[in-house]
């Protein structure tokens, strides 16, 4: 499943970033970027405009919902997938309202990542 996707992982947990990186590498993503909180993620988006962003919600400094809002203002077409252990109705509504592309419940399975990658690639905005 070699692809040209450039993916940003934003999560305060070094373990989650490591596991997600391994999964994305396994699925052949071209470039994997990392951010440990929402502030860093916004800066990475400004500098690199990744094809896909996997965004945790509960994080110190700037949480995932705040980062989502800022990223959508900067890049209205950005595909931000919220990846969190907290899939409550309130958070899901807030994520959808602010333009999240999708939601993945933690712990993140390979299948969930594969489904997202397939969906992004299918939409054809990215070179496979």
């Amino acid at each position, binding site marked *: 499943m070699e692809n040209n996707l450039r993916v940003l992982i934003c999560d*305060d*947990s*070094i*373990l*989650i970033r*490591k596991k997600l990186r391994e999964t994305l590498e396994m699925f052949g993503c071209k470039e994997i970027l990392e951010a440990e909180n929402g502030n860093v993620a916004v800066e990475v988006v400004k500098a690199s405009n990744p094809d896909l962003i996997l965004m945790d919600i*509960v*994080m*110190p400094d700037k949480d995932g919902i705040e980062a989502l809002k800022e990223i959508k203002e900067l890049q209205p077409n950005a595909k931000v997938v919220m990846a*969190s*252990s*907290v*899939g*409550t*109705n*309130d958070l899901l509504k807030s994520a959808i309202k602010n333009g999240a592309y999708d939601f993945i419940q*933690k*712990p993140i399975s390979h299948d969930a990542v594969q489904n997202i990658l397939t969906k992004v690639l299918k939409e054809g905005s990215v070179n496979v």
Partner: protein
Amino acid sequence: MFSQYFGHYLLNHELITREQLADVLEYQKSVHVKFGVIAVDEDFMTPSQVEEVHEKQKQVDKRFGEIAIELGYLSDDQVEVLISKQKQKHLFLAQALVDRGYMTIEQFSQALNQYKKENSLSDDQFEELKSGSIEALVENLLVDDHKSIYGKYVTLFAKNVIRFIDDQVHLEVSNAEVVQQDKWLVHQEILGESPLFTAITANEEVFLHIASKHAEEELTEVDELAKASVSEFLNLTNGIYLVNMSNWGVELNMKPQAISENAKVSGELTCIKVHTSFGSFQLLLSNQPNNISIVSSGSELLV
């Protein structure tokens, strides 16, 4: 999980030794529960009838059920019931104890009845416990006041420990006035109409075990990865708790988790000792997070 509970009950009542308990908990993994043990547990047969069938089995190559039917001790329907019950986990402990010669079937059966009596359990509650229902175990563990406050959380926590960390778990509410201070403390606060302070404390060795199990890789020092692993385990549990509560109509949020070394926690806390096959750690809970203080490296942090 009932095996761990009942095993500790037997230990606390000096019916078996600590070494015997460790031995049977290990041994029961490989045990195939025999019909005779279940037949007595179900009150279908007496221990002496089981012995008689066992003696017959030494003479003829027949199954236990066949002989018991021939002798008029079991009906066809009862044999069907026994087949379906054969996989019930609490019986693995009974079989292991009997196989190792630490208890007879009769002694086990008596102890089980005594446990039921001491815990004022109805037949239904007891059946639920024996079938390994974690809800029933937690219900039995917490005092009345704490059931409504912490019951759902402790049940979920126990399930997650079994799913992600270790399947040989035994929980115990600690009555100690002062919380035992462990080297590592991971905590996270849940905010909203039912706030909750949650924390895991562990010594270095157990902390590394939890970290390694959850990360699914061998971690040998408490580095950033190990800290992230234990933190993420608590975060994951709390995330699921928030989803469960949301489904019950209670919307909650949570702060990012934090980790401290050699910190002292104080306040109105409920401490649950979590015993696993690799050692024990503590789960600390409080429905008054504002009153919890964590003193770490000389500075006091109010949560």
